[in-house]
């Protein structure tokens, strides 16, 4: 029984990690007033870059860094389209998803003689036990013998809370998402803040995607990301656009995903089909939006392109 519990906990942590990183990434963008439907695409480019660069350099850390850089690069067209060109942000996000999957799979096929997936990555990130703590029964092996990306994700959550709520930069970023006109009157450069926010979201979502290809899995193909970006978006909303909320929601959704995956081991899927468990994050998010599970309220200026000197 305890083994099962450890197993569930371990898988939850495993699958929650990319969701946490990506949801926090989305948090920056959406808090600054730019909708980010493109999280799925940003994760995709991260997963792709991490796998390919790790294969080339034999260092997963270089792979992770390269993924972060690629995420910033992939988020740039979204920033340009939705901030400078004042394009519809949802449309631009959809285009990012098209573009990232297209570029990734195209380059994989071009690089590996038409193969639909990268070769297996031998040098993935390895689990990093925290001496002492990993000896705690049940939770030790799950929480304190995790992949480095998990520790990174937890640090990012607390750091983001500090940045967004305790620093002038964070105040400005949130102000730009709530009332850009007022923020500009106070001397905040709305365009620059939104650019920075969207690029940060690219970096974090891409790091989340990297976790899928060089920690949880060890290759990249067309279905490596398959919806994780959208679950992260759901976690961001279910977590009410707050760092700790998004953290909790992403962890809970990671739990749902892990139950769907390992449910048959202890006979759960005999009662509940795994597909129903997969649906759970989405159903809960709709209920939250409709106000049945606590009201989820979006930043006030979200989705609205900003124009200097308008009314």
């Amino acid at each position, binding site marked *: 029984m305890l083994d099962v519990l450890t197993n569930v906990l371990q898988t939850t942590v495993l699958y929650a990690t990319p969701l946490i990183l990506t949801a926090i990434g989305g948090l920056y963008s959406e808090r600054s007033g730019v*909708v980010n*439907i493109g999280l799925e695409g940003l994760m995709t480019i991260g997963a792709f870059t991490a796998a390919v660069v790790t294969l080339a350099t034999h260092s997963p850390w270089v792979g992770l860094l390269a993924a972060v850089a690629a995420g910033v690069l992939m988020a740039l*067209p979204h920033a*340009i*389209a939705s901030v400078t*060109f004042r*394009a*519809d942000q*949802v*449309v*631009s996000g*959809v*285009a*990012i*998803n*098209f*573009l990232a*999957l*297209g*570029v990734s*799979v*195209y*380059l994989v*096929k*071009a690089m590996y003689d*038409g193969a639909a997936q990268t070769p297996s990555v031998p040098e993935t990130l390895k689990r990093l036990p925290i001496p002492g703590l990993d000896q705690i029964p049940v939770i030790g092996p799950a929480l304190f013998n995790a992949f480095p990306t998990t520790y990174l994700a937890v640090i990012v959550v607390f750091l983001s809370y500090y940045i967004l709520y305790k620093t002038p930069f964070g105040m400005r970023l949130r102000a730009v998402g709530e009332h850009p006109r007022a923020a500009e009157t106070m001397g905040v450069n709305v365009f620059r803040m939104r650019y920075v926010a969207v690029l940060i979201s690219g970096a974090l979502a891409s790091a989340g995607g990297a976790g899928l290809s060089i920690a949880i899995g060890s290759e990249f193909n*067309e*279905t490596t990301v*398959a*919806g994780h970006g*959208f679950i992260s*978006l*759901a976690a961001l*909303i279910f977590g009410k656009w707050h760092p700790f909320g998004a953290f909790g929601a992403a962890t809970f959704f990671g739990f749902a995903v892990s139950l769907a995956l390992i449910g048959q081991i202890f006979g759960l899927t005999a009662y509940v*089909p795994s*597909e*129903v468990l*997969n*649906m759970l994050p*989405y*159903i809960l*998010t*709709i209920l939250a*939006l*409709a*106000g049945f599970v606590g009201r989820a309220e*979006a930043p006030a200026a979200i989705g609205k392109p900003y124009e200097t000197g308008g009314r």
Partner: protein
Amino acid sequence: MQVQQRQMRQSPLLTSIVSVILGMLVGAVMMLVAGYNPIQAYIALFTSAFLMPYDIGETIRTITPLILTGLSVGLAFRTGLFNIGVEGQFIIGQLMSVIVALKLDLPPVVHVIVAVIAGAVGGALWAFLPGFLKATRGVHEVITTIMLNFIALYLANTLVRNWLSAGSDSTEKIPESASLRWDVLSSLFGNARIHLGLFLALAAAFVMYYLLWRTTWGFELRSVGFNPQASEYAGMSVKKNLVMSMMISGCFAGLGGATELLGTAEYLSIHGSHTGIGFDGIAVALLGANSPVGILLAASLFGILTYGGSVMQFEASVPYEVIRIVFAAIIFFVAANIVRWAGTKFRKKAVTKDA
């Protein structure tokens, strides 16, 4: 002055043409980067889409669902809604039509008609919820429809596995009485999978035109999308019309799923991820400037690129995904309205020169 004002009004046709050309240029650059010859590849792409009667039939088969998902997105846009849930409504359309095809025993012509209607109604009902939540609780339809896409995907998967088949990954082939294929039509095109759904798609394009621009109700639907406050003041029910717009949009998407299933695939299998046809509808609607004729043209272009691209991969070994990159670039250029932007830059320069 008059001339200037006319220039200010941007032409959607010009925007679309420039965006397509730029999009294909982006594709060409991607091909060069990976060491392919873009001119050869594009020639292979466009010729292979029309090479044999079979290819023409398959190209038309590819275009058919794109028309319907494009109309679905386009009608929603015209009525002030962003239906990003076309993908989910499409899946529900497939699911409902395969249920009717496999579980009901009906005479030939009746069977296929009931199956098509079931798909369209399924799509409309699946779109009802986001419309209803937006009307009553102010929930933005973009988020709810994204969530419903995944719920639809998993719902279809679980029903295929646990109810429509005996634990397998796909259903049986549908009976001939429920098929949209017509021997006469197929034999004209070298037994391609072209099917009668094409005519339903063309009819849907006409319905969208007639409903929105030739009926009072259609005027209300557009009016509510354009300016809800003014419409309310003029005595129109904003909430009712909003829900109806969403349902008509979902109906087109469901019809797309039904015809694709009953005409092209003829069975439903478990999908690991979305079909993509619903998301392509967003690209089609944008490029077609949300007008029925524009959508027909845009769907044709995307259909040719999609089918031609798959043959190109086979014959010129250029990966098919370059077509997805072209699609993405086209969406960016249309959304950023590159023509208007270039226009304002040019005008600003001209003004400073005059001064």
